């Protein structure tokens, strides 16, 4: 990662509040949403931010609850950085960047209590609904965090429960009911990127390759914070963090308009 010439160029450009694609520091690229493009999934979404494209699918199944939460459904999030999405991705088991991406998206959903997991209990200690969120970037042009989180949120919102045969205790995967997942929140993730002393939103890949650090902030509908994660080798000051918390709350309102 990193190219000294490009980094110097971007640092100077950003310090003048400018970006190569003409955006301001706090604006996103064009955002497009496609709801339920995958028929087989219980819910799905394709999110496009500029040239970044992410496909998120939600699948539901029935399984055993965790012993410490016997009356709650199970949420499992995963991200696959497919080699088709970037020359830098390799096939094989998830590496730290994929695991971090999935866990940051998961944390916002879990900690905001977006899914009412208690309503997903079928029989205490024995059978609960399991919600699988699978994130597949299709083209990585930066800011996979925000695109994936938005995709997961919309896929969950549009996910329908499959039919459950109580006598046979079996899921009939092919038959979807009209029932949606029981949801209570809508966490929106805003990731800020830092190069030099400039902080900006929605880095494209060229910018992301040169960042010193980033911070992702998940904001709930009631404007509280549900999750945060700082990443990469640089540092933030307390003053910067405090102002970014405020900015994330403001920006989340704008991103909410894309929720379908």
């Amino acid at each position, binding site marked *: 990662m990193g190219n000294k010439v490009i980094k110097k160029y971007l640092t100077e450009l950003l310090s003048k509040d400018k970006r190569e694609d003409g955006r301001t520091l706090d604006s996103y690229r064009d955002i497009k949403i496609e709801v339920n493009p995958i028929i087989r999934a219980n819910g799905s979404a394709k999110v496009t931010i500029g040239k970044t494209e992410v496909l998120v699918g939600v699948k539901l199944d029935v399984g055993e609850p965790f012993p410490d939460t016997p009356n709650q459904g199970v949420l499992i999030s995963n991200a696959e950085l497919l080699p088709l999405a970037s020359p830098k991705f390799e096939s094989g088991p998830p590496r730290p960047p994929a695991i971090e991406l999935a866990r940051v998206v998961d944390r916002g959903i879990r900690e905001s209590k977006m899914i009412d997991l208690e309503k997903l209990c079928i029989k205490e200690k024995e059978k609960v609904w399991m919600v699988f969120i699978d994130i597949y970037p299709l083209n990585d042009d930066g800011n996979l965090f925000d695109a994936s989180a938005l995709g997961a949120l919309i896929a969950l919102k549009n996910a329908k429960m499959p039919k459950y045969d109580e006598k046979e205790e079996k899921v009939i995967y092919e038959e979807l009911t009209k029932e949606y997942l029981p949801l209570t929140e809508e966490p929106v993730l805003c990731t800020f990127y830092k190069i030099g002393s400039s902080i900006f939103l929605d880095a494209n890949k060229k910018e992301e390759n040169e960042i010193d650090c980033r911070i992702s902030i998940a904001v709930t509908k009631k*404007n509280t*914070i549900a999750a945060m994660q*700082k990443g990469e*080798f640089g540092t933030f000051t*307390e003053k910067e*963090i405090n102002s970014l*918390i405020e900015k994330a709350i403001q920006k989340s309102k704008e991103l909410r308009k894309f929720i379908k």
Partner: protein
Amino acid sequence: MGGTSTEKLVIKNKRLDGRKLNEMRKLSIKAGIIPNADGSAELALGETKVIAAVYGPREVLPKHLQKQDRAYLECIYDMASFSTPERNRPGPSRRSVEISKVITEGLAPAIFLEKYPKTKIDIYLEITNANAGTRCAAMTAAAVALADAGIEMRDLVASIASGKVDGQLALDLAQKEDNFGEADVPIAVMPRTKEITLLQMDGDLTKEELQKIIQMNLKACDEIYKVQKQALKNSYKGASKNGE
């Protein structure tokens, strides 16, 4: 977070372990405990216990990971199988992989990596007894182990996790407070310049609460910094006595 408990965690401003809301658990650090390592440290934060060992700068293997202009840094955070109430399956988990990543990124700003090109610095962090705050304890110990290894650094890194318990903000969460509390915010900082090198959060907090917790954490890190420096001084005292 996410768990449910009927037990009160804070009664009359006192916590289950008798601490006040703004009171840290007892912290002790000892540097230079593993003879084979280039640097090491042992840390206890209440019942949370960590051993940190630094190997390097040394040859990078496999070779293609070698960086021409700086050292390749890798931290491995691991929980011993017996460190948790229920046995923890040995080996990496998704949780430990993520923690290893953020710890690496949280220690890197403090190290002059550019002074050690084409080498690798390995930091191994083993949690031997877990009672919450393990990633922070591990980073605090790692910073001392790095200094003990004689690796050139901009500053030490001090780290602590605070949060919200029974509706009140509390410093340095213990296990039940972490499991059943409303929020957890781990932070790491270079105390001299106050640059934040690690920041995570989960739970539910207002902007004001979050800002207050960050402030609380930073203040506590100044205290941790003193213990870290003392641990390093103590290890040198020991060394001169033994005529090393």
